[in-house]
């Protein structure tokens, strides 16, 4: 599979090229050229991402074999993440055409967007600790700028806050990488994992784990470190909010936590507990904070903290079960985590896109000023309803199945307190999302919203496809499909040390 690098190289190339499209000659000779190029590139990466499903192996950069050079690793987990990231990026691109039309330098916007995509793909694909940091920084820096792209006072403040906290997170991560290098003399993840398995973790390994917990926890906005997320995600332009909440915090936070703890450091019971209780805390606190929000996008942002809490909780639970040797239960918890990751990516992207459509058409984000939008914007209303029902966990929708799996895993594993909190939070989630439906979509149309029209076709199509995902992604757990997508990804986490074997051979 000699084309895997294109997943990084194509968006990088687009990102390098697009700033030139802001020039006068490009506006005359290539009107909407930046949009067309971005669409072509995201289509290509989405296609490539789907083609990686079912493939497993490494790609050697520059022809140097693993411990010497940098290698890209494709396995079940990476292809799952790649598919999620690139397909949502494609839909968001389509949505952006209309939404970002009014903002002037479109070239720079799409350039930053593609660089962020390249950064995320690089993080997912890389098999090298330092390279992970480098691409994490690309994605983070691009997202700092994109958060402030509308450049009001609020947006710039949010971007600044995000920049400061994100940089602190990055500093923790680079410290961790440095310590790991001092302990093992290696940067290649597989070789680090093998060396650590040989010599034991020692003090440095423990401190490294703590650093990674804080650093990636900041990127994933887990509760003690969540302060930046509500501001950043609600101030960004809506397509960017969708990418940030939908995939960025998962690619830079959750995925890295999973990869580093399960495949490189090897998770133990203490870290599993930290992850699980941290996740539980995020889940509960995020949901409690979301209840009182008046601003639709802030509510969605707090809901993201809560839902990512579910994923981290399930990962930690899987880690505890693994270190206790309960393979079957661990596999259930991990499948729940990954399944919820997919569902939440689709649902939250959909909800943020819908909130953007409402903001664009009704010129408001306050729930109190909306009302009866179902009559005025039927497509947005229907798609939002699908997303809300799915994220709140109503039976036939996708979100229900992933939550059910996590709850069942918690009950079978004997974590009754966690299971109770899971159920309670689900009820809370349902409550605040129902409030959104009641205040924004049902009821009478207020005077000032009489002239509101439906969102443009491109935006509606993007939302519609995501809504189809919200309804239909549940099928991923059906036997035939489960072996294709979820099972390989779960196996990567379940058999942590097999990663080193796959990369290095022997």
């Amino acid at each position, binding site marked *: 599979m000699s084309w895997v690098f294109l997943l990084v190289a194509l968006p990088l190339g687009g990102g390098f090229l697009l*700033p*030139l499209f802001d020039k006068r000659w490009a506006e005359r000779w290539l009107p909407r050229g930046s949009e067309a190029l971005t669409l072509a590139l995201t289509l290509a990466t989405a296609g490539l991402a789907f083609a990686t499903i079912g493939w497993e192996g490494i790609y050697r*950069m*520059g*022809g140097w074999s693993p411990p010497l050079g940098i290698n890209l690793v494709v396995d079940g987990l990476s292809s799952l993440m790649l598919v999620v990231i690139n397909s949502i990026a494609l839909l968001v691109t389509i949505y952006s055409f209309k939404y970002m039309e009014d903002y002037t330098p479109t070239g720079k916007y799409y350039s930053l967007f593609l660089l962020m995509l390249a950064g995320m793909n690089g993080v997912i694909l890389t098999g090298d600790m330092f390279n992970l940091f480098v691409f994490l920084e690309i994605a983070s820096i691009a997202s700092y700028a994109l958060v402030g792209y509308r450049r009001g006072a609020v947006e710039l403040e949010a971007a600044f806050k995000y920049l400061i906290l994100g940089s602190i997170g990055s500093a923790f991560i680079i410290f961790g990488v440095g310590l790991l290098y001092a302990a093992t003399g290696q940067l290649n993840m597989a070789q680090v994992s093998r060396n650590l398995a040989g010599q034991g973790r020692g003090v440095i390994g423990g401190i490294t784990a703590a650093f990674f917990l804080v650093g990636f926890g900041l990127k994933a906005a887990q509760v003690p470190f969540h302060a930046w997320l509500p501001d950043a995600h609600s101030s960004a332009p809506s397509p960017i909010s969708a990418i940030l909440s939908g995939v960025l915090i998962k690619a830079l936070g959750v995925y890295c936590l999973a990869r580093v703890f399960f495949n490189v450091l090897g998770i133990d019971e203490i870290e599993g507990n930290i992850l699980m209780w941290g996740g539980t805390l995020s889940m509960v606190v995020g949901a409690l904070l979301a209840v009182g929000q008046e601003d639709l996008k802030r509510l969605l942002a707090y809901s993201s903290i809560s839902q990512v809490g579910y994923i981290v909780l399930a990962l930690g639970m899987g880690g505890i079960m693994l270190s206790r040797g309960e393979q079957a239960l661990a596999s259930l918890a991990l499948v729940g985590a990954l399944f919820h990751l997919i569902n939440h990516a689709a649902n939250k992207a959909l909800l943020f896109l819908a909130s953007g459509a409402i903001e664009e058409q009704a010129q408001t984000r306050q729930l109190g000023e909306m009302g009866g939008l179902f009559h005025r914007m039927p497509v947005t209303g229907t798609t939002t309803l699908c997303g809300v029902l799915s994220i709140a966990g109503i039976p036939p929708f996708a979100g229900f199945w992933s939550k059910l799996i996590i709850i069942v895993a918690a009950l079978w594993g004997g974590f009754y307190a966690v299971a109770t909190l899971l159920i309670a939070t689900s009820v809370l989630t349902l409550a605040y999302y129902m409030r959104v439906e009641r205040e924004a979509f049902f009821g009478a149309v207020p005077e000032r919203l009489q002239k509101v029209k439906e969102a443009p076709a491109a935006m509606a199509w993007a939302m519609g496809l995501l809504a189809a995902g919200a309804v239909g992604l549940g099928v991923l757990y059906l036997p035939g499909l489960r072996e294709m997508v979820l099972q390989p990804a779960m196996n990567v986490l379940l058999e942590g040390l097999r990663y080193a074997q796959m990369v290095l051979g022997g």
Partner: protein
Amino acid sequence: MPEKEGMSLIVKEVARLIAPPIFIFGLYLTLTGHLTPGGGFPGGVVFACGFILVVLAYGGKRAFRRLPPEGASKYDSGGALLFLVIGLIGSLVGGHFLYNFIQAALPGTVFHLLSAGTMPLINIAIGMKVAACLFMVVMALTLFRLAGEKGGES
């Protein structure tokens, strides 16, 4: 820089005398990166310093006529694309992204300027890019300050 065009005569003269050697030194660092300590990153920084010196000495308005900050963006993208294209050629010729295809085909004599395959080329690309980036960083700071002084706060 708005009230007075550039700094005093002394600074202008010194800048005029010293900017071209700085530039040549940057080129030297960049081009011999594979032989001696140096390379694209330091070389690019030295380039940028040559340009920034001129801008600081002669004042924004006069220097920007010769060195428009928008033009730097072109070099920025160009350098980055050159790096990427070298990598892509490597993948087409040798089957691996960023493969050192020139070294495989035409190994130069070690310790001479034309050796080490793609490395001097990549150094040039990085030098261009870093120079343009650093120049734009300083110019962005300057422009931002000017905007702040004109428009009051924010």
